């Protein structure tokens, strides 16, 4: 029984649950960062220190920060929180809960059919990872680069402010610059 693992797992689950149930978007993001941190710990325990570091740096450090920027830009202050609460009555959780539990049940069932499945081994060194990535799966790197380029260009275009659109009042009837 790996205590550290259990603790980290518990933290991840609890913080994720918290993340999806907060009315304040900022709080949700912060809880999610905690979740990512716990998962980074788990990665380290699984023998992937480099990935653990990447999780913190990229996922929690870059992507979540991006989220924070967006939240700041959108100025989701006090009124937004109330609105958020208004949108989330308890009844709204029934359907998702059913769907979620259904899928969870199925996944666990599949798992239980092939129990036990073994244990994790030793550390896989980053050197090995690097070599595999850039020698065998180099094309993946190229594709990922192109994907990021596309995302860059897309976001740049989408983020542009058009004068004509800025003037329009009252709830969007025109989304044609989208």
């Amino acid at each position, binding site marked *: 029984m790996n205590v550290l693992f259990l603790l980290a797992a518990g933290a991840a689950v609890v913080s994720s649950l918290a993340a999806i149930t907060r009315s304040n978007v900022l709080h949700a993001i912060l809880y999610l960062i905690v979740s990512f941190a716990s998962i980074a710990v788990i990665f380290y325990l699984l023998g992937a220190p480099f990935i653990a570091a990447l999780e913190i740096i990229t996922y929690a450090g870059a992507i979540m920060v991006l989220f924070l920027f967006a939240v700041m830009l959108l100025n989701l202050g006090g009124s937004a929180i109330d609105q958020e609460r208004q949108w989330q009555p308890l009844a709204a959780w029934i*359907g*998702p809960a059913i*769907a*979620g539990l*259904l*899928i969870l049940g*199925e*996944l666990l*069932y*599949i798992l239980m059919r092939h129990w036990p499945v073994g244990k994790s081994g030793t550390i896989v060194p980053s050197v090995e990872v690097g070599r595999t990535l850039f020698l065998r799966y180099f094309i993946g790197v190229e594709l990922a680069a192109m994907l990021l380029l596309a995302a860059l260009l897309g976001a740049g275009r989408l983020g542009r402010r058009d004068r004509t659109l800025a003037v329009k009042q009252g709830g969007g009837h025109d989304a044609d610059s989208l």
Partner: protein
Amino acid sequence: MNLLLWLIVGLPLGAFVVLILPGRAMGDRRSGIIGTGAVMLSAIAAAMASVQFLRTMPTSGHFTATAWQWIASGGLAVQFALRLDALSLVMVLVVTIVASLILLYSVRYMAGEEEYCRFFAFMNLFVASMLLLVLADDLLVLYLGWEGVGLSSYLLIGFWYRDEGAVLAARKAFTITRIGDTALLLGIVLIAVRLGTLRIDNVLATAATTWQSGGALPLAAALLLLFGALGKSAQLPLQTWLPDAMAGPTPVSALIHAATMVTAGVYLIARMHGLFELAPLAMRLVSILGAATLLLAGAAALAQRDIKRSLAYSTMSQIGYMFLALGAGAWTAAIFHFVTHAFFKALLFLVAGVVIHSLHGERDMHKMGGLRTKLPVTFAGFTIGICSLAAIPVVTAGFYSKDLILSCVATAPAGGTLLWTCGIVGAFLTALYSFRMLFLVFFGERKIDPAPEGGLSILLPIVILALGSLTLGFLETPKGLGSVALFSNAVKDVLGEPSSIPVSLQFRIALVLFAVSATLIGFLVAWMVYVRKPTLIKGFLALPHHRAALALSARGFGFDDLYSAALVRPFSWLAKINKTDFTLVYPAVIARLAEAGALLLSLTQNGKLRFSVMGIAFGAGLLIAIGIFS
């Protein structure tokens, strides 16, 4: 030779396909050239085929060109084959030559029509079907051509489809001939079942050996075939469609409803004469119906005001003559009359077309008059046609063919005095109504000023047809007057000699003189009434029962009304009360179900993102479950 035969049929068919596909994009000039050219080339092919036929006559007397095995099931094997013998050769030559002339005329006559290309396409379809009909080696191929001409007739009568009258006339023609076609099909089925073959010479040979003369089976088959012929040839009782078919363009009336399609019935009976000889009762019926029609139509033609309707009744009457001849066993005479009739009737229709065009669409003869000075060539053509129709002696072709019919009817054992008398009375009526037409249209005072005659392409066909109407008679002259027997010798192999009771030469000459006098009396009466004293006719007709008789005659003796009351009205009534019957529930239920289903499913299209995601989630769950439990 095989190639020539297929070209004869294939060229007009190809022209039809070429003209119908691009539609109006073809352009008037090109359509005219293709449409007329194809039939002219077909005529040339026919001429070449006839030269080859006459030069290298095979012992069997015919050529057969087989294309492929059409049906081979059960006991029935049908080949798609064409057959050229003397009879079909005659028919092919007449059809192609007359059709080429009429199409040449149409190039100018139908100019300016909105759907010029369609006209030529359908005319070519018609010519192809007619040629297939007469060249068919097999009854089923004949039936194919038969249906084809019926279809083309419908399409062409209703050519001006925006005119309600034309559409109704086309529908009427198709429906009435359909009745005949059904009988024909039943006859074909009977022959196929009982004789096991549909190839025409096989049928005739097998029928001669397996069926007894006068038996029930040949009688049934002959009657069914006869009924089919009655429909297509507009004889009693299926004759009511022909006058209304004049709603189509004049070239159509000339080609289809005068020269060719309506003679398909005559061809059928002549071709299957071996079968008819086995059923004397059927032959008697043929001549009775022929005689009745020729009298009735002749009387009706007298009372018509529309020039084309008058010619239509005239056609009906002349075909009655052909049927009369067929019933008496005079196959050759009937076909000979067909040849001459094709020429002079087509001529008369084309001239009528010129008259109608020059009088800007006027068709009522009582409103015409005095055109002979203004339209000289037309007048000459019409006169020649009328004289041929009325069988003016010696100089016209009609005289020789009609005389042949009358003498055969008089001398054949299956003929008789009564039938011959009907023919003589018919000759009188024919002369009367034809000269009436001539005098009403071209003599007297001019009421409407005509536009001048058309150009070469209009007048040349008229001239050629007129020449034919004068000269073709010399192919077969009676025994007293030169005894030329070119025609009957040519078709002897196929049609045989007409049987006749032996009569003396003086008897024959007496018969001819009777016929001639009937014609001349008719001419004189017409001259008196319509040229000398036009007021006489008005006084005559002022009497009430005369006027009623005239009205009845003008309406074709009430057959239309009879059929309308007895058949059409009850049927329409039945259809009307059956409009909302219970079987309509099922389609309605299906429609309602589909509507409800669509409404239900459209609820899923609410545009909400989360709805779709929910769908994906549940769908994924479902798929995994299927994966687990299968």
